[in-house]
Protein backbone atom coordinates (compact mmCIF):
# COMPACT_ATOMS: atom_id res chain seq x y z
CA UNK A 1 0.00 0.00 0.00
CA UNK A 2 2.86 2.31 -0.67
CA UNK A 3 2.15 4.11 -3.88
CA UNK A 4 -0.83 6.40 -3.72
CA UNK A 5 -3.62 5.11 -5.92
CA UNK A 6 -4.50 7.41 -8.79
CA UNK A 7 -8.18 7.24 -7.80
CA UNK A 8 -7.31 8.75 -4.45
CA UNK A 9 -5.45 11.64 -6.05
CA UNK A 10 -8.46 12.24 -8.27
CA UNK A 11 -10.74 12.12 -5.24
CA UNK A 12 -8.51 14.66 -3.50
CA UNK A 13 -8.87 17.09 -6.38
CA UNK A 14 -12.59 16.56 -6.77
CA UNK A 15 -13.14 17.06 -3.04
CA UNK A 16 -11.14 20.28 -2.94
CA UNK A 17 -12.99 21.66 -5.93
CA UNK A 18 -16.34 20.71 -4.46
CA UNK A 19 -15.44 22.42 -1.20
CA UNK A 20 -14.40 25.55 -3.07
CA UNK A 21 -17.67 25.55 -5.00
CA UNK A 22 -19.70 25.07 -1.84
CA UNK A 23 -17.88 27.89 -0.08
CA UNK A 24 -18.49 30.18 -3.03
CA UNK A 25 -22.17 29.28 -3.03
CA UNK A 26 -22.43 30.03 0.66
CA UNK A 27 -20.79 33.41 0.43
CA UNK A 28 -22.08 34.65 -2.91
CA UNK A 29 -25.10 32.70 -3.98
CA UNK A 30 -27.19 32.44 -0.84
CA UNK A 31 -29.13 35.42 0.45
CA UNK A 32 -28.54 37.03 3.81
CA UNK A 33 -31.17 35.80 6.20
CA UNK A 34 -33.64 38.52 7.02
CA UNK A 35 -33.62 38.28 10.79
CA UNK A 36 -30.37 36.84 12.07
CA UNK A 37 -28.04 38.13 9.38
CA UNK A 38 -24.85 36.54 8.22
CA UNK A 39 -24.39 34.10 11.05
CA UNK A 40 -27.08 31.94 9.48
CA UNK A 41 -24.59 31.01 6.76
CA UNK A 42 -22.68 28.97 9.29
CA UNK A 43 -25.65 26.64 9.24
CA UNK A 44 -24.81 25.13 5.84
CA UNK A 45 -21.51 23.64 6.89
CA UNK A 46 -22.56 23.17 10.51
CA UNK A 47 -25.21 20.60 9.62
CA UNK A 48 -22.93 18.97 7.06
CA UNK A 49 -20.29 18.48 9.75
CA UNK A 50 -22.81 16.98 12.14
CA UNK A 51 -23.88 14.68 9.35
CA UNK A 52 -20.30 13.47 8.89
CA UNK A 53 -20.07 12.90 12.63
CA UNK A 54 -23.07 10.62 12.50
CA UNK A 55 -21.86 8.84 9.36
CA UNK A 56 -18.63 8.01 11.12
CA UNK A 57 -20.51 6.68 14.09
CA UNK A 58 -22.43 4.29 11.91
CA UNK A 59 -19.32 3.32 9.98
CA UNK A 60 -17.44 2.48 13.16
CA UNK A 61 -20.28 0.28 14.40
CA UNK A 62 -20.50 -1.57 11.10
CA UNK A 63 -16.72 -1.97 11.02
CA UNK A 64 -16.93 -3.25 14.58
CA UNK A 65 -19.43 -5.93 13.73
CA UNK A 66 -17.40 -6.86 10.67
CA UNK A 67 -14.23 -7.16 12.72
CA UNK A 68 -15.85 -9.39 15.33
CA UNK A 69 -17.20 -11.66 12.62
CA UNK A 70 -14.16 -11.91 10.40
CA UNK A 71 -11.21 -11.03 12.62
CA UNK A 72 -9.65 -9.17 9.70
CA UNK A 73 -7.28 -6.39 10.72
CA UNK A 74 -8.51 -4.04 7.95
CA UNK A 75 -11.88 -3.70 9.64
CA UNK A 76 -10.28 -2.49 12.81
CA UNK A 77 -8.34 0.12 10.85
CA UNK A 78 -11.58 1.29 9.21
CA UNK A 79 -13.26 1.52 12.60
CA UNK A 80 -10.47 3.52 14.15
CA UNK A 81 -10.27 5.83 11.13
CA UNK A 82 -14.02 6.52 11.22
CA UNK A 83 -13.95 7.41 14.88
CA UNK A 84 -10.96 9.69 14.54
CA UNK A 85 -12.45 11.63 11.63
CA UNK A 86 -15.82 11.86 13.30
CA UNK A 87 -14.39 13.19 16.55
CA UNK A 88 -12.94 16.07 14.56
CA UNK A 89 -16.04 16.83 12.50
CA UNK A 90 -18.52 16.44 15.31
CA UNK A 91 -16.37 18.85 17.32
CA UNK A 92 -16.56 21.37 14.49
CA UNK A 93 -20.32 20.89 14.39
CA UNK A 94 -20.71 21.46 18.12
CA UNK A 95 -18.48 24.55 18.16
CA UNK A 96 -20.08 26.13 15.10
CA UNK A 97 -23.48 25.35 16.54
CA UNK A 98 -22.48 27.19 19.67
CA UNK A 99 -21.20 30.15 17.64
CA UNK A 100 -24.50 30.27 15.79
CA UNK A 101 -26.49 29.96 19.00
CA UNK A 102 -24.88 32.89 20.75
CA UNK A 103 -26.37 35.71 18.69
CA UNK A 104 -29.54 33.84 17.79
CA UNK A 105 -30.59 32.22 21.07
CA UNK A 106 -28.58 34.54 23.30
CA UNK A 107 -26.79 31.63 24.90
CA UNK A 108 -23.74 29.54 24.05
CA UNK A 109 -25.45 26.29 24.98
CA UNK A 110 -28.81 24.73 25.66
CA UNK A 111 -29.70 21.27 26.89
CA UNK A 112 -32.09 20.39 24.11
CA UNK A 113 -32.09 16.81 22.76
CA UNK A 114 -29.89 17.36 19.73
CA UNK A 115 -27.14 19.34 21.42
CA UNK A 116 -27.10 17.09 24.45
CA UNK A 117 -26.96 13.97 22.31
CA UNK A 118 -24.18 15.47 20.20
CA UNK A 119 -22.15 16.20 23.30
CA UNK A 120 -22.71 12.66 24.57
CA UNK A 121 -21.69 11.22 21.20
CA UNK A 122 -18.47 13.19 21.35
CA UNK A 123 -17.84 11.82 24.84
CA UNK A 124 -18.46 8.28 23.60
CA UNK A 125 -15.87 8.85 20.87
CA UNK A 126 -13.43 10.17 23.44
CA UNK A 127 -14.06 7.13 25.63
CA UNK A 128 -13.42 4.89 22.63
CA UNK A 129 -10.05 6.54 22.04
CA UNK A 130 -9.13 6.31 25.72
CA UNK A 131 -10.12 2.66 25.78
CA UNK A 132 -7.85 1.86 22.86
CA UNK A 133 -4.99 3.83 24.35
CA UNK A 134 -5.08 1.66 27.45
CA UNK A 135 -4.56 -1.62 25.64
CA UNK A 136 -1.23 -2.96 24.40
CA UNK A 137 -2.28 -6.09 22.57
CA UNK A 138 -3.48 -5.09 19.07
CA UNK A 139 -6.01 -7.90 18.79
CA UNK A 140 -7.61 -7.12 22.13
CA UNK A 141 -7.55 -3.42 21.29
CA UNK A 142 -9.41 -4.15 18.08
CA UNK A 143 -11.97 -6.41 19.76
CA UNK A 144 -12.72 -4.01 22.60
CA UNK A 145 -12.89 -1.07 20.21
CA UNK A 146 -15.36 -2.99 18.06
CA UNK A 147 -17.55 -3.89 21.03
CA UNK A 148 -17.58 -0.34 22.39
CA UNK A 149 -18.34 1.14 18.98
CA UNK A 150 -21.35 -1.14 18.68
CA UNK A 151 -22.57 -0.38 22.20
CA UNK A 152 -22.10 3.33 21.66
CA UNK A 153 -23.94 3.36 18.37
CA UNK A 154 -26.97 1.58 19.81
CA UNK A 155 -27.12 3.71 22.94
CA UNK A 156 -27.27 7.03 21.08
CA UNK A 157 -30.82 6.74 19.68
CA UNK A 158 -32.02 5.68 23.13
CA UNK A 159 -30.25 8.67 24.66
CA UNK A 160 -31.82 11.01 22.14
CA UNK A 161 -35.23 9.49 22.78
CA UNK A 162 -34.90 9.80 26.54
CA UNK A 163 -34.05 13.49 26.34
CA UNK A 164 -36.78 14.07 23.77
CA UNK A 165 -39.42 12.61 26.08
CA UNK A 166 -37.91 14.66 28.87
CA UNK A 167 -38.55 17.78 26.85
CA UNK A 168 -42.08 17.01 25.72
CA UNK A 169 -43.38 16.10 29.14
CA UNK A 170 -41.57 18.92 30.85
CA UNK A 171 -41.51 21.93 28.59
CA UNK A 172 -39.10 24.68 29.48
CA UNK A 173 -40.85 26.73 32.12
CA UNK A 174 -38.13 29.27 32.68
CA UNK A 175 -37.73 31.51 29.66
CA UNK A 176 -40.25 32.42 27.05
CA UNK A 177 -40.35 29.28 24.99
CA UNK A 178 -38.23 26.48 23.63
CA UNK A 179 -35.15 28.31 22.35
CA UNK A 180 -34.95 26.18 19.27
CA UNK A 181 -38.25 27.65 18.16
CA UNK A 182 -36.61 31.01 17.87
CA UNK A 183 -34.04 31.23 15.17
CA UNK A 184 -35.76 28.85 12.82
CA UNK A 185 -36.11 30.10 9.28
CA UNK A 186 -37.70 29.05 6.06
CA UNK A 187 -35.24 28.09 3.41
CA UNK A 188 -35.48 29.72 0.04
CA UNK A 189 -34.61 27.52 -2.91
CA UNK A 190 -31.07 28.95 -3.11
CA UNK A 191 -30.57 28.11 0.53
CA UNK A 192 -31.99 24.63 0.14
CA UNK A 193 -29.82 23.79 -2.83
CA UNK A 194 -26.70 25.08 -1.10
CA UNK A 195 -27.64 23.11 1.96
CA UNK A 196 -28.04 19.85 0.06
CA UNK A 197 -24.88 20.52 -1.89
CA UNK A 198 -22.94 21.08 1.35
CA UNK A 199 -24.14 17.73 2.63
CA UNK A 200 -22.83 16.14 -0.55
CA UNK A 201 -19.50 17.93 -0.33
CA UNK A 202 -18.89 16.88 3.23
CA UNK A 203 -19.77 13.30 2.41
CA UNK A 204 -16.99 13.50 -0.16
CA UNK A 205 -14.66 15.00 2.43
CA UNK A 206 -15.50 12.16 4.80
CA UNK A 207 -14.79 9.52 2.16
CA UNK A 208 -11.56 11.19 1.10
CA UNK A 209 -10.19 11.64 4.60
CA UNK A 210 -11.33 8.12 5.54
CA UNK A 211 -9.37 6.63 2.68
CA UNK A 212 -6.26 8.62 3.66
CA UNK A 213 -6.62 7.65 7.30
CA UNK A 214 -7.07 3.98 6.43
CA UNK A 215 -3.89 4.07 4.35
CA UNK A 216 -2.15 5.65 7.30
CA UNK A 217 -3.38 2.85 9.52
CA UNK A 218 -2.04 0.17 7.20
CA UNK A 219 1.27 1.99 6.96
CA UNK A 220 1.50 2.15 10.75
CA UNK A 221 0.83 -1.59 10.94
CA UNK A 222 3.58 -2.26 8.43
CA UNK A 223 6.06 -0.16 10.39
CA UNK A 224 5.13 -1.99 13.61
CA UNK A 225 5.63 -5.39 12.02
CA UNK A 226 8.94 -4.39 10.52
CA UNK A 227 10.05 -2.95 13.84
CA UNK A 228 9.39 -6.25 15.55
CA UNK A 229 11.20 -8.15 12.83
CA UNK A 230 14.29 -5.99 12.80
CA UNK A 231 14.70 -5.68 16.55
CA UNK A 232 14.66 -9.42 17.11
Amino acid sequence: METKPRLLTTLDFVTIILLAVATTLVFFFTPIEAVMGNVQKVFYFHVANAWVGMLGFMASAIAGIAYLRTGKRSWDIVGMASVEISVVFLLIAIVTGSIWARPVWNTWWTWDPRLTTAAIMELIYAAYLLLRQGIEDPDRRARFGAVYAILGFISVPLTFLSIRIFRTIHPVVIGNSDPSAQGSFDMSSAMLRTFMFSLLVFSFIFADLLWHRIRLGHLADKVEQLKLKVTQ
Partner: protein
Amino acid sequence: MKPDPTLTHAQAANPSMASSPPSPSFIRATAAIVWKDLAAELRSRELLSAMLVFALLVILIFNFAMELDAKARATITSGVLWVTFAFAGTLGLNRSMAMEKDRGCLDGLLLAPVDRSAIYFGKAIGNLVFMFIIEAIVLPVYSVLYNINLFQPGLLLVILLGSIGYVAIGTLLASMAVQTRTRDVLLPILLFPLVIPVLVAAVKGSNGFLQGLEISEIMPWLNLLIVYDVIFTAIAFMVFDYVVEE
Protein backbone atom coordinates in the same frame (compact mmCIF):
# COMPACT_ATOMS: atom_id res chain seq x y z
CA MET B 1 -34.00 -14.00 18.65
CA LYS B 2 -31.78 -16.51 16.91
CA PRO B 3 -28.10 -15.64 17.30
CA ASP B 4 -26.02 -16.43 14.25
CA PRO B 5 -24.31 -19.76 14.97
CA THR B 6 -21.02 -18.43 13.61
CA LEU B 7 -21.06 -15.44 15.90
CA THR B 8 -19.67 -17.09 19.01
CA HIS B 9 -17.48 -20.11 18.99
CA ALA B 10 -19.02 -21.14 22.27
CA GLN B 11 -22.32 -21.48 20.56
CA ALA B 12 -20.72 -23.41 17.73
CA ALA B 13 -19.32 -25.81 20.27
CA ASN B 14 -22.73 -26.16 21.80
CA PRO B 15 -25.10 -26.28 18.84
CA SER B 16 -28.04 -26.78 21.13
CA MET B 17 -27.42 -23.30 22.50
CA ALA B 18 -28.31 -21.65 19.23
CA SER B 19 -32.05 -21.95 19.43
CA SER B 20 -33.19 -23.84 22.51
CA PRO B 21 -33.85 -22.58 26.04
CA PRO B 22 -30.78 -22.47 28.31
CA SER B 23 -29.66 -25.98 29.17
CA PRO B 24 -29.60 -27.04 32.81
CA SER B 25 -25.80 -26.87 32.87
CA PHE B 26 -25.99 -23.22 31.80
CA ILE B 27 -28.32 -22.38 34.63
CA ARG B 28 -26.27 -24.38 37.05
CA ALA B 29 -23.08 -22.67 35.94
CA THR B 30 -24.66 -19.26 36.28
CA ALA B 31 -26.02 -20.10 39.70
CA ALA B 32 -22.63 -21.43 40.77
CA ILE B 33 -20.94 -18.18 39.84
CA VAL B 34 -23.56 -16.10 41.63
CA TRP B 35 -23.25 -18.28 44.68
CA LYS B 36 -19.45 -18.08 44.60
CA ASP B 37 -19.56 -14.29 44.60
CA LEU B 38 -22.17 -14.09 47.32
CA ALA B 39 -20.41 -16.59 49.54
CA ALA B 40 -17.06 -14.89 49.11
CA GLU B 41 -18.61 -11.56 49.89
CA LEU B 42 -20.41 -12.91 52.92
CA ARG B 43 -17.11 -13.99 54.36
CA SER B 44 -15.04 -10.92 53.65
CA ARG B 45 -17.67 -8.22 53.24
CA GLU B 46 -15.07 -5.92 51.70
CA LEU B 47 -17.08 -5.08 48.63
CA LEU B 48 -20.33 -4.32 50.37
CA SER B 49 -18.80 -2.26 53.14
CA ALA B 50 -16.91 -0.16 50.61
CA MET B 51 -20.02 0.42 48.51
CA LEU B 52 -22.12 1.17 51.56
CA VAL B 53 -19.79 3.65 53.18
CA PHE B 54 -19.32 5.33 49.85
CA ALA B 55 -23.06 5.62 49.26
CA LEU B 56 -23.67 7.12 52.68
CA LEU B 57 -20.84 9.59 52.16
CA VAL B 58 -22.36 10.67 48.86
CA ILE B 59 -25.67 11.35 50.56
CA LEU B 60 -23.85 13.31 53.23
CA ILE B 61 -22.00 15.39 50.67
CA PHE B 62 -25.21 16.16 48.84
CA ASN B 63 -26.67 17.42 52.06
CA PHE B 64 -23.96 20.02 52.37
CA ALA B 65 -23.52 20.71 48.67
CA MET B 66 -27.16 21.60 48.30
CA GLU B 67 -28.71 23.35 51.26
CA LEU B 68 -32.36 22.92 50.61
CA ASP B 69 -35.63 23.34 52.36
CA ALA B 70 -38.00 20.41 52.57
CA LYS B 71 -39.95 21.48 49.50
CA ALA B 72 -36.95 21.74 47.17
CA ARG B 73 -35.65 18.45 48.45
CA ALA B 74 -38.74 16.68 47.28
CA THR B 75 -37.90 17.51 43.68
CA ILE B 76 -34.28 16.47 43.76
CA THR B 77 -34.55 13.28 45.79
CA SER B 78 -34.67 11.13 42.67
CA GLY B 79 -31.58 12.80 41.28
CA VAL B 80 -29.61 12.39 44.49
CA LEU B 81 -30.64 8.76 44.82
CA TRP B 82 -29.61 7.85 41.31
CA VAL B 83 -26.32 9.69 41.42
CA THR B 84 -25.60 7.78 44.60
CA PHE B 85 -26.52 4.46 43.00
CA ALA B 86 -24.54 5.22 39.87
CA PHE B 87 -21.35 6.03 41.73
CA ALA B 88 -21.61 3.26 44.30
CA GLY B 89 -22.48 0.91 41.48
CA THR B 90 -19.29 1.81 39.66
CA LEU B 91 -17.34 0.89 42.75
CA GLY B 92 -19.07 -2.47 42.95
CA LEU B 93 -18.59 -3.27 39.29
CA ASN B 94 -14.92 -2.43 39.38
CA ARG B 95 -14.11 -4.42 42.49
CA SER B 96 -16.19 -7.37 41.44
CA MET B 97 -14.31 -7.76 38.17
CA ALA B 98 -10.93 -6.83 39.62
CA MET B 99 -11.23 -9.63 42.15
CA GLU B 100 -11.70 -12.12 39.34
CA LYS B 101 -8.73 -10.84 37.43
CA ASP B 102 -6.38 -10.49 40.38
CA ARG B 103 -7.04 -13.84 41.92
CA GLY B 104 -6.84 -15.55 38.57
CA CYS B 105 -10.40 -16.74 38.94
CA LEU B 106 -11.29 -15.45 35.50
CA ASP B 107 -8.84 -17.75 33.79
CA GLY B 108 -10.11 -20.65 35.82
CA LEU B 109 -13.67 -19.87 34.85
CA LEU B 110 -12.71 -19.60 31.21
CA LEU B 111 -11.12 -23.04 31.28
CA ALA B 112 -14.27 -24.58 32.65
CA PRO B 113 -16.41 -26.41 30.05
CA VAL B 114 -19.21 -23.90 30.36
CA ASP B 115 -20.76 -21.40 27.98
CA ARG B 116 -18.96 -18.07 28.39
CA SER B 117 -22.26 -16.24 28.63
CA ALA B 118 -22.92 -18.09 31.87
CA ILE B 119 -19.99 -16.20 33.29
CA TYR B 120 -21.55 -12.96 32.14
CA PHE B 121 -24.94 -13.76 33.62
CA GLY B 122 -23.39 -15.03 36.81
CA LYS B 123 -21.33 -11.90 37.32
CA ALA B 124 -24.19 -9.65 36.28
CA ILE B 125 -26.65 -11.25 38.67
CA GLY B 126 -24.04 -11.10 41.42
CA ASN B 127 -23.49 -7.40 40.74
CA LEU B 128 -27.23 -6.86 40.69
CA VAL B 129 -27.65 -8.52 44.06
CA PHE B 130 -24.95 -6.28 45.51
CA MET B 131 -26.65 -3.21 44.09
CA PHE B 132 -29.95 -4.31 45.61
CA ILE B 133 -28.33 -4.73 48.98
CA ILE B 134 -26.88 -1.24 48.82
CA GLU B 135 -30.18 0.20 47.65
CA ALA B 136 -31.97 -1.65 50.41
CA ILE B 137 -29.82 0.15 52.94
CA VAL B 138 -29.67 3.56 51.30
CA LEU B 139 -33.44 3.86 50.92
CA PRO B 140 -34.34 3.63 54.60
CA VAL B 141 -31.39 5.84 55.55
CA TYR B 142 -32.49 8.51 53.12
CA SER B 143 -36.11 8.16 54.17
CA VAL B 144 -35.19 8.72 57.77
CA LEU B 145 -32.76 11.56 57.16
CA TYR B 146 -35.13 13.50 54.94
CA ASN B 147 -38.50 12.40 56.17
CA ILE B 148 -39.70 11.03 52.85
CA ASN B 149 -41.34 7.66 52.44
CA LEU B 150 -39.34 5.95 49.75
CA PHE B 151 -40.94 2.55 50.05
CA GLN B 152 -43.52 2.91 47.36
CA PRO B 153 -44.03 0.01 44.92
CA GLY B 154 -43.71 2.29 41.89
CA LEU B 155 -40.39 3.65 43.02
CA LEU B 156 -39.13 0.18 43.83
CA LEU B 157 -40.09 -0.94 40.35
CA VAL B 158 -38.10 1.89 38.78
CA ILE B 159 -35.12 1.05 40.97
CA LEU B 160 -35.38 -2.58 39.88
CA LEU B 161 -35.50 -1.78 36.17
CA GLY B 162 -32.84 0.90 36.39
CA SER B 163 -30.45 -1.32 38.31
CA ILE B 164 -30.88 -4.12 35.79
CA GLY B 165 -29.98 -1.83 32.89
CA TYR B 166 -27.06 -0.35 34.74
CA VAL B 167 -25.65 -3.71 35.73
CA ALA B 168 -26.27 -5.31 32.32
CA ILE B 169 -24.03 -2.91 30.50
CA GLY B 170 -21.81 -2.20 33.50
CA THR B 171 -20.74 -5.82 33.87
CA LEU B 172 -19.76 -6.01 30.21
CA LEU B 173 -17.81 -2.76 30.32
CA ALA B 174 -16.15 -3.68 33.61
CA SER B 175 -14.92 -6.90 32.03
CA MET B 176 -13.24 -4.78 29.39
CA ALA B 177 -11.96 -2.06 31.67
CA VAL B 178 -10.31 -4.49 34.05
CA GLN B 179 -8.14 -5.80 31.21
CA THR B 180 -6.70 -2.40 30.35
CA ARG B 181 -3.84 -0.45 31.85
CA THR B 182 -6.07 2.31 33.17
CA ARG B 183 -8.56 -0.06 34.83
CA ASP B 184 -10.66 1.61 37.55
CA VAL B 185 -10.44 5.05 36.03
CA LEU B 186 -11.71 3.84 32.68
CA LEU B 187 -14.96 2.25 33.78
CA PRO B 188 -16.88 5.45 34.59
CA ILE B 189 -15.60 7.01 31.36
CA LEU B 190 -16.88 4.07 29.34
CA LEU B 191 -20.06 3.59 31.31
CA PHE B 192 -21.64 6.95 31.96
CA PRO B 193 -22.18 8.13 28.39
CA LEU B 194 -23.83 4.83 27.50
CA VAL B 195 -26.00 4.63 30.58
CA ILE B 196 -27.60 8.05 30.26
CA PRO B 197 -30.95 6.73 28.98
CA VAL B 198 -31.19 4.63 32.14
CA LEU B 199 -30.35 7.54 34.40
CA VAL B 200 -32.75 9.94 32.69
CA ALA B 201 -35.59 7.42 32.67
CA ALA B 202 -34.90 6.25 36.22
CA VAL B 203 -34.76 9.75 37.65
CA LYS B 204 -37.88 10.90 35.83
CA GLY B 205 -39.69 7.68 36.66
CA SER B 206 -38.72 7.83 40.33
CA ASN B 207 -39.71 11.45 40.46
CA GLY B 208 -43.03 10.65 38.84
CA PHE B 209 -43.91 8.13 41.49
CA LEU B 210 -42.70 10.31 44.33
CA GLN B 211 -44.69 13.29 43.12
CA GLY B 212 -47.72 11.11 42.57
CA LEU B 213 -48.08 11.78 38.87
CA GLU B 214 -50.53 9.94 36.61
CA ILE B 215 -49.34 6.52 35.59
CA SER B 216 -49.78 7.48 31.95
CA GLU B 217 -47.12 10.13 32.37
CA ILE B 218 -44.69 7.67 33.92
CA MET B 219 -45.25 4.88 31.40
CA PRO B 220 -42.88 6.28 28.75
CA TRP B 221 -40.06 6.13 31.27
CA LEU B 222 -40.86 2.59 32.32
CA ASN B 223 -41.06 1.55 28.69
CA LEU B 224 -37.73 3.13 27.94
CA LEU B 225 -36.14 1.30 30.86
CA ILE B 226 -37.55 -2.03 29.75
CA VAL B 227 -36.42 -1.48 26.16
CA TYR B 228 -32.95 -0.53 27.30
CA ASP B 229 -32.70 -3.52 29.62
CA VAL B 230 -33.76 -5.97 26.94
CA ILE B 231 -31.55 -4.53 24.20
CA PHE B 232 -28.38 -4.28 26.23
CA THR B 233 -28.73 -7.59 28.02
CA ALA B 234 -29.15 -9.22 24.61
CA ILE B 235 -26.14 -7.43 23.14
CA ALA B 236 -23.98 -8.21 26.17
CA PHE B 237 -24.97 -11.86 25.86
CA MET B 238 -23.93 -11.90 22.19
CA VAL B 239 -20.72 -9.99 22.61
CA PHE B 240 -19.29 -11.20 25.92
CA ASP B 241 -17.28 -13.98 24.32
CA TYR B 242 -15.21 -11.48 22.39
CA VAL B 243 -14.42 -9.59 25.53
CA VAL B 244 -12.95 -12.46 27.50
CA GLU B 245 -11.25 -14.56 24.87
CA GLU B 246 -7.54 -14.77 25.29
